[in-house]
């Protein structure tokens, strides 16, 4: 069943249009990835879905109901969670406090203890650093924390923007590994990623966004063999 459906959305900043008709469908309990070149509009799409930007046209359906005009904090309350690009951690607060800040909505608060254990299990590093300030973590640890903080919110849909940005290969592998585990726990995930290979490797279904439009979609194995994906990205 589709939990989130984006239909033909246009949006942008001020007068500048970035999205020219993007659409995608998230199946429940699946990991869907969205790839595309820099400036293709991936982040803009996430921000529009999250409600940080208003869609100019088109619709966004959550469990079949249109919620394109619902404000961001209500969406957060409903279980739509965004792990933003650049992590956006609370650098002056400890790891645990960051996790606590993730669990601010009503559904997640009672489960804080359980979720904390779950997250520590998934990222043992976080447990080691529980009382360290987030700003003192390494880049990879920070990214882990950002994802972990997202999980703490009991998300129905977890959207992750640029999971592997600027991280060393081994860390990237670890993170993607965690993502696979996470999928098993039954969270619906939308992953936005520049690292096309890796993204496709872990996902069930993929979309390619190009210049604000959905250009291509399909099961990831299919996309991986698609020559167009390679050309669209590397320009060979």
């Amino acid at each position, binding site marked *: 069943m589709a939990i989130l459906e984006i239909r033909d959305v246009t949006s942008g900043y001020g007068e500048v249009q970035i999205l020219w008709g993007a659409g995608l469908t998230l199946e429940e309990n699946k990991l869907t990835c969205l790839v595309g070149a*820099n400036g293709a509009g991936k982040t803009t799409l996430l921000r529009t879905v999250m409600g940080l930007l208003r869609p100019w046209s088109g619709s966004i359906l959550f469990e079949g109901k249109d919620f394109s005009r619902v404000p961001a904090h209500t969406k957060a309350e409903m279980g739509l969670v965004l792990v933003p690009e650049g992590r956006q951690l609370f650098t002056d607060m400890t790891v645990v406090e960051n996790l606590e800040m993730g669990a601010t909505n009503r559904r997640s608060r009672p489960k804080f203890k359980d979720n904390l254990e779950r997250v520590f299990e998934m990222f043992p590093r976080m447990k080691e650093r529980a009382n360290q300030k987030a700003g003192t973590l390494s880049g990879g640890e920070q990214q882990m924390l950002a994802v972990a903080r997202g999980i703490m919110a009991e998300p129905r849909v977890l959207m992750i923007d640029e999971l592997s940005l600027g991280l060393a290969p081994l860390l990237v592998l670890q993170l*993607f590994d965690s993502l696979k585990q996470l999928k098993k726990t039954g969270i619906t995930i939308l992953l936005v990623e*520049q690292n096309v*290979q890796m993204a496709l490797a872990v996902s069930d279904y993929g979309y390619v966004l190009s210049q604000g439009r959905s250009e291509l979609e399909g099961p990831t194995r299919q996309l991986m063999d698609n020559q167009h994906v390679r050309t669209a990205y590397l*320009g060979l």
Partner: protein
Amino acid sequence: MSAILNVEGITKRFGGLQALTKVTFDLPEGQILGLIGPNGAGKTTLFNVINGIYSPEEGRVHFRGKDITGHKPYHLSRMGLARTHQIVRPLNGLTVRENVTAGACFGRENQKLGRAVQIADEVLEFIGLAERAEQLASSLNVAQKKRLEMARALASRPYLLLLDEVLAGLNSSEIDGMIAIVRKIRDQGVTIIMIEHVMKAVMNISDRIIVLDYGQQIAEGTPQQVAADTRVIEAYLGDPKLAERLMKEE
């Protein structure tokens, strides 16, 4: 053909983060050098070291034969080094013409105001913003702002122009327009280094390409050579071996 820029063993750290490691290259005059690599690879940091915003922990930068390591950005501008920013930084409260005039005023030729205005108008004509000269820079759209940044850099009549993702966020016709402009600039004898993610463009336009990954130069050569390099493909598309491992575990 002499080298206009020599970069020797540049190393830059931020706290514990190694942003650049022993980056070394020479840039012959009149060429376009493409600088590519994943986000966070250190490309913009390299620009910042070259134009004096950061000083490197190790290594030297020579520009037109002079050691410019650690020089202030405004000195370098006077010496003929101009750049654009990845995230456009127009002087929002000033008009388009004033923005470009400022470029001409304080750049290499250090023009008087009257002459600078003339240069600004010429450059705006060249870059296709003449109609908007009177508008406030803040009222431009992203594509126009990118052009404005280019115009401002050009008006300083640089020897070397550093372009940081001037194509990002443009649609394909805008990209084509911008590529044409970059070519024209090169044809006027300006040496260019461009950071770019739009591969189609960078592969087409560059004489040479350097690939950075985790602050290290992992490849250097013609577009064809670089595109065939397995390390580049790994760095860019992601490591197929790692991807395979991920898939196997299922």
